[in-house]
């Protein structure tokens, strides 16, 4: 089968916050670029982000410092976030947030006209000594919507080119040079397959929360970029680190933002007790997400959960009053009425820890360049490949992400990737993209195998996968039980090559897309399973009943999953500080983590 080819200087796969921020940079650069997105950009998952974007812009507190934000982030990461990257993000953050305002983002405002900031979990002043900070910049509780639409609008203004409802299937890797030379993609509306040849490719495909049964993530969050990278043989870092958000609506999975607790809401158990007082006496309900989620599960296991099965707790908001709820949390009131049948001004919302965010991803440097990691030879840049946003692991989140830090990650590192590509172009360093027919063969063969009308049912295999992940790799984990889970995944793998796609037409064939997405989900799930089983300690979001302590001696390190051997290696954490004065450096050394 021969396919059409189209040429680009730079391709951005993904039209969420990270992709659109990178695109904005490149649209102004004169390069021949396009954004490839499987949905119209404003339908990307970034639109769902509610609470805000965390950044020390000194609006709520004129004395706030990016160094304090950095301290919180390093501590939140349980010390395996890369400090060079965290420093870069916290320091460059204000610039990136102001840019968003300049292009029109309708932030909520303080009486003095500056951007409104609200308290979020894990935030402190003065290196944890000055009490709760309010550092999350918000547009009511629709910050992601405001951010994504504003970025899309700015891209329209800049004349960016979009390939909307195009689905990227696989990376094209040149057998001759080893460089990434674009992607094979399907135009969903016509079903046509095209080789998009490009000198650089930026993966900004977002998360993969759909590996779990219960998730706050959109249906489209199927880890396609991770799947593409893993199939190309590239490593995945810290894949055991999945954030379970404390407040997913019980039964529906839909999120209610941490901003609810930031505005003064709190969690109660069946006795009406504010139980976080026992687990985090200082930060209470605004402790880090991993801490709050575990406390909730312990309450439920101890029989103090709500409902007949003690399977959720309650988020109390009614004491805030209708005015605050309508002004600050209008979207939450809507979601709660629709999905929990509860008006938060009158009754508490039933909530449960729910899969939310993938801290792991494709390892990159602070320019967004994707890295190959060799246990002996160390890191090397993968020519032609960048990654930014949730799919990437530049590692600003380490073992646990702080709320509001993802949106910041998107725009800071989306921008950084764009800047780096621009610079390389100016200095004539963009690689040439040359591939042969043979380099396309793996992707085309894979597509060919999805033309069978009989075989395993996509929806059933997907459900089974999600069940395995939910049961064996949830909030609390245990070796034996995880090994059982891995065995089940090994059995399931066979089904992946034998999926039935009974829709044989070309035009808008979503059955075919769902089958490819399922294959991607599986790769992500498998990497998660292996990484979780091998990391024999508890750190951040990774909590093991059989290894309950953090083990800095052996595991103050990133885990690196190698897809070809299905083994786990380690990569050292970056502790380089470039802009922290020597008298403040001690704050960033690993300490006991309490809230």
């Amino acid at each position, binding site marked *: 089968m021969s396919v059409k080819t189209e040429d680009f200087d730079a391709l951005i796969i993904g039209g969420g916050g990270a992709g659109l921020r990178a695109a904005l940079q490149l649209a102004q650069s004169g390069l021949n670029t396009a954004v490839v997105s499987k949905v119209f950009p404003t339908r990307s998952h970034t639109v769902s982000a509610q609470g805000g974007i965390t950044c020390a812009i000194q609006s709520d507190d004129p004395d706030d410092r990016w160094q304090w934000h950095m301290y919180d982030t390093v501590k939140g990461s349980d010390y395996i976030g890369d400090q060079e990257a965290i420093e870069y993000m916290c320091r460059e953050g204000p610039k990136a947030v102001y840019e968003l305002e300049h292009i029109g983002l309708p932030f909520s405002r303080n009486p003095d006209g500056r951007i409104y900031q609200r308290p979020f979990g894990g935030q402190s002043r003065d290196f944890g000594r000055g009490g709760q900070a309010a550092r999350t910049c918000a547009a009511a509780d629709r910050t992601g919507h405001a951010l994504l639409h504003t970025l899309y609008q700015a891209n329209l203004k800049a004349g960016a080119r979009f390939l909307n409802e195009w689905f990227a299937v696989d990376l094209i890797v040149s057998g001759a040079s080893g460089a990434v030379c674009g992607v094979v993609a399907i135009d969903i509306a016509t079903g046509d397959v095209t080789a998009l040849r490009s000198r650089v490719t930026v993966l900004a495909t977002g998360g993969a929360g759909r590996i779990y049964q219960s998730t706050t993530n*959109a249906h489209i969050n199927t880890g396609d970029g991770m799947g593409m990278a893993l199939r190309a043989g590239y490593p995945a870092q810290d894949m055991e680190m999945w954030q379970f958000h404390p407040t997913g609506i019980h039964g529906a999975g839909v999120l209610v933002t941490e901003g609810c607790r930031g505005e003064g809401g709190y969690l109660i158990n069946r006795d009406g007790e504010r139980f976080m007082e026992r687990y985090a006496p200082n930060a209470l309900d605004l402790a880090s997400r991993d801490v709050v989620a575990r406390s909730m599960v312990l309450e439920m296991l101890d029989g103090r959960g709500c409902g007949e099965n003690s399977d959720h707790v309650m988020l109390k908001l009614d004491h805030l009053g209708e005015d605050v709820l309508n002004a600050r949390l209008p979207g939450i009131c809507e979601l709660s009425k629709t999905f929990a049948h509860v008006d938060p001004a009158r009754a508490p919302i039933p909530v449960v820890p729910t899969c939310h965010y993938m801290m792991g991803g494709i390892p990159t440097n602070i320019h967004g360049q994707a890295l190959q990691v060799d246990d002996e030879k160390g890191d090397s840049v993968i020519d032609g490949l960048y990654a930014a946003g949730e799919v990437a692991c530049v590692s600003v989140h380490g073992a646990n992400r702080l709320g509001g830090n993802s949106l910041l990650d998107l725009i800071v590192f989306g921008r950084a990737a764009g800047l780096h590509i621009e610079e390389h172009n100016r200095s004539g360093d963009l690689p040439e993209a040359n591939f042969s027919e043979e380099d396309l063969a793996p992707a085309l063969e894979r597509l060919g195998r999805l033309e069978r009308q009989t075989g395993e049912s996509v929806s059933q295999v997907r459900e089974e996968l999600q069940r395995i992940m939910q049961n064996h790799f949830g909030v609390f984990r245990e070796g034996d039980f995880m090994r059982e889970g891995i065995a089940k995944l090994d059995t399931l793998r066979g089904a992946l090559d034998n999926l039935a796609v009974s829709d044989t037409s*070309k035009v*808008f064939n979503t059955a075919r897309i769902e089958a490819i997405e399922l294959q991607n989900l599986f790769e992500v799930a498998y990497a998660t399973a292996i990484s979780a089983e091998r990391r024999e300690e508890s750190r951040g979001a990774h909590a093991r009943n059989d290894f309950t302590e953090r083990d800095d001696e052996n595991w103050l390190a990133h885990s690196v999953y190698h897809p070809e051997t299905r083994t786990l290696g380690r990569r050292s954490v970056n502790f380089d500080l470039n802009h922290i004065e020597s008298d403040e450096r001690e704050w960033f050394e690993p300490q006991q983590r309490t809230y």
Partner: protein
Amino acid sequence: MLKVSVYRYNPETDERPYMQDYELEIPGGRDVMVLDAMHLLKEQDQTLSFRRSCREGVCGSDGVNMNGRNGLACIVPLSEVVRGNRLSLRPLPGLPVVRDLVVDMEQFYSQYEKIRPYLIHDAPPPPERERLQSPEDRDKLDGLYECILCACCSTSCPSFWWNPDKFLGPAALLQAWRFIADSRDTATSERLAQLDDLYSLYRCHGIMNCVAACPKGLNPTKAIGQIRNKLIASG
């Protein structure tokens, strides 16, 4: 068993669209969302195509016509639309159908692009600082910026059906007003001038279908009225 009748059209095989009937068992007889029911249908019949993403009413992917009413399938419970145990699902009216429940949104998007949906500001922004905006000025954007471009409004508007290329339609006009109303935008007079022809704005006859259809509770008719007033005031 719920009886669901679905608009089917595949340009590769069907000369014309037709309605296909399905019987659907909802597990536990629960009151699920229409989108959940559509997913169950797709398990029965993989060839049924529709769009969806967030499943919580914020991305605007799954605008469909449910028993004659436009809305987002993911936030409309069956109990709200099913009548006499029947549900009929059709694509949003007035736009060309790509396949089944998937419409071609190109016209809708191009009307949106026409109103220049981005902030225009003459003076360069302050370096390393945000532009200031009072909470009162910011409040003027509420009820406007929340639009999710789902097209439920424009595809319920008769004026848009007849002139989808010339009449901008409620969604685009709501966004036009969003930028005129923004204290940070300095292109008000150009924006108004652009709307001051026979079709772009004035084809709206105040029928308010758009308001009834908007799943986000927004009010395009009011925004259109505000643009008119502003045009009159600016003479």
